[in-house]
């Protein structure tokens, strides 16, 4: 693993989730236990996937870590401080790219810089680096409607990385894409992760995607949303296309499948 530079906060204690529960009030006056008693310790620089069937609380967990939702009980500490929105050291990437058609590709990437009030000229230089890393160099001044779905998600990834966040939260970022594009983007994401070394929490339904990308896979079950197992992935880094269907990958997928077998 080639970690180039580590932001200061990364040297702190990573992400600590203690006895976290989330209960939603439903419209008909009932309650839904979306998360129950989640305890997790995520090390700085780790790539962790959250895997489980629909409705097991993966998005809820990610949104709580992003500070977008209040938890019912428990605590979430991100690099030593409670989870909150508007932090420069964390960024979220959603299932849809959410690009603004009235902004060029470059200006879309710079949106977080404007809102967080960071220095624009150094951020612009960084945006250009990210465009290069995501193979979008010649698209900086293009309109977003001129891009394909896969390119749009790469812009969305570049926007998430522009503030140099130590924590990257991704909620099924590639699930709306076709299989070929998804695979290519996963390979790129693995490379980016190994190059930049950001702590990454990745929500997915897809077992092989989770295994290929992760250091650990958190397996979850629905109703109530609970962590049933955390699987260490024994695949070497750097990961590349040949790890997608290697014997080792398939073996790890088997372990994950076994853990969640009774819930799917």
């Amino acid at each position, binding site marked *: 693993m080639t970690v180039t530079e580590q932001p200061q906060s990364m040297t702190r204690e990573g992400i600590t989730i203690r006895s976290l529960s989330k209960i939603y009030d439903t419209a008909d006056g009932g309650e839904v236990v979306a998360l129950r008693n989640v305890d997790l310790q995520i090390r700085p620089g780790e790539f962790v996937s959250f895997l489980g069937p629909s409705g097991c609380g993966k998005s809820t967990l990610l949104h709580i870590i992003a500070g977008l939702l209040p938890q019912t009980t428990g605590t979430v500490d991100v690099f030593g401080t409670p989870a909150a929105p508007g932090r420069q050291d964390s960024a979220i990437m959603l299932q849809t790219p959410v690009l603004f058609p009235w902004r060029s590709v470059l200006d879309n990437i710079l949106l977080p810089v404007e809102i967080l009030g960071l220095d624009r000229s150094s951020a612009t230089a960084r945006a250009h680096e990210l465009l290069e890393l995501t193979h979008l160099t010649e698209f900086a001044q293009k309109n977003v*409607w001129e891009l394909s779905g896969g390119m749009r998600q790469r812009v969305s990834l570049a926007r998430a990385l522009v503030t140099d966040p130590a924590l990257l939260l991704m909620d099924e970022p590639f699930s709306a894409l076709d299989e070929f594009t998804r695979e290519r983007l996963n390979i790129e994401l693995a490379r980016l992760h190994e190059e930049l070394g950001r702590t990454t929490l990745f929500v997915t339904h897809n077992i092989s995607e989770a295994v290929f990308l992760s250091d650990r896979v958190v397996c979850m079950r629905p109703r109530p949303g609970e962590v049933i197992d955390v699987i260490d992935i024994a695949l070497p880094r750097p990961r590349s296309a040949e790890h997608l269907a290697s014997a080792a990958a398939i073996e790890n997928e088997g372990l994950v499948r076994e853990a969640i077998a009774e819930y799917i």
Partner: protein
Amino acid sequence: MSTSTELQAPPTRKDTVTKARRPARRGPWAKAWPPILVIALFLLLWELACRAGLVNEIIVPPPSDVAVSLVSMLDKAYFWEATWVTMAETIAGFLIGVILAWAIGTALGMYDWAKTAFYPIVVGFQITPRVALAPLFLTWFGFGLTSKVVMAATICFFPVLLNVMVGMDTVDKNARTLMRSLGASRWEEYRKLVLPSSLPLIFAGIKNAITLALIGAIVAEFVGASRGMGVLIKSLNFQLDVAGGFAVIVALMIFGLILYWIVEYIDSKVVFWRSHT
């Protein structure tokens, strides 16, 4: 069998390609000539009907008379004075109506309770024929320009207000989540997301408003005024100068079109992404 047909296909395909390319080369003219042809045909039939005595020239003058009237008006001070008055009323009413609708619509749209509370009233006024208020405005604001500006503003206020409010509801939920995750303030969220997201709908309302403003100004002039193109039409009709009346209507149409084109041009520059969403 099918193979032999396919083998013969290329020459035919080449033919279609050359044919299909031709209109594109002619540019705007290819699009412009059909309406020009239709208008010319319509005017010709109208002219012939008048010449042949099929219609009474006092009731419906031939287009040539209307054209002569219009041209002779172009160097009359009273015509330009009336034009100036009506355009001023229209543009002032339009700007006041649009700006108020924008401000009030945004304020109402920001709060869910305000939206629910005011929505039925807004729809109610939107359905009411607002020109019916013209006599009332005349008694309130008098014969001068004010009553016409108020009428024009009122008539274009509601469609814009409605579109401003509805536009704020069309904002993508994930985009709001993104803005919140960045810790954007309410104002930043409005300026960087909600406003641009609702611009396509707001401008659709504004394009509607410019034509409505002209209607409002003319109706208000009909109801009671001493100056303006509505007054001019009425007085020419009283003098049985029907060709003159038609000439003013044609002038109104031309000025209305110019105003509409200006708004449409601004729309295409501001909401340049409209066709891509």
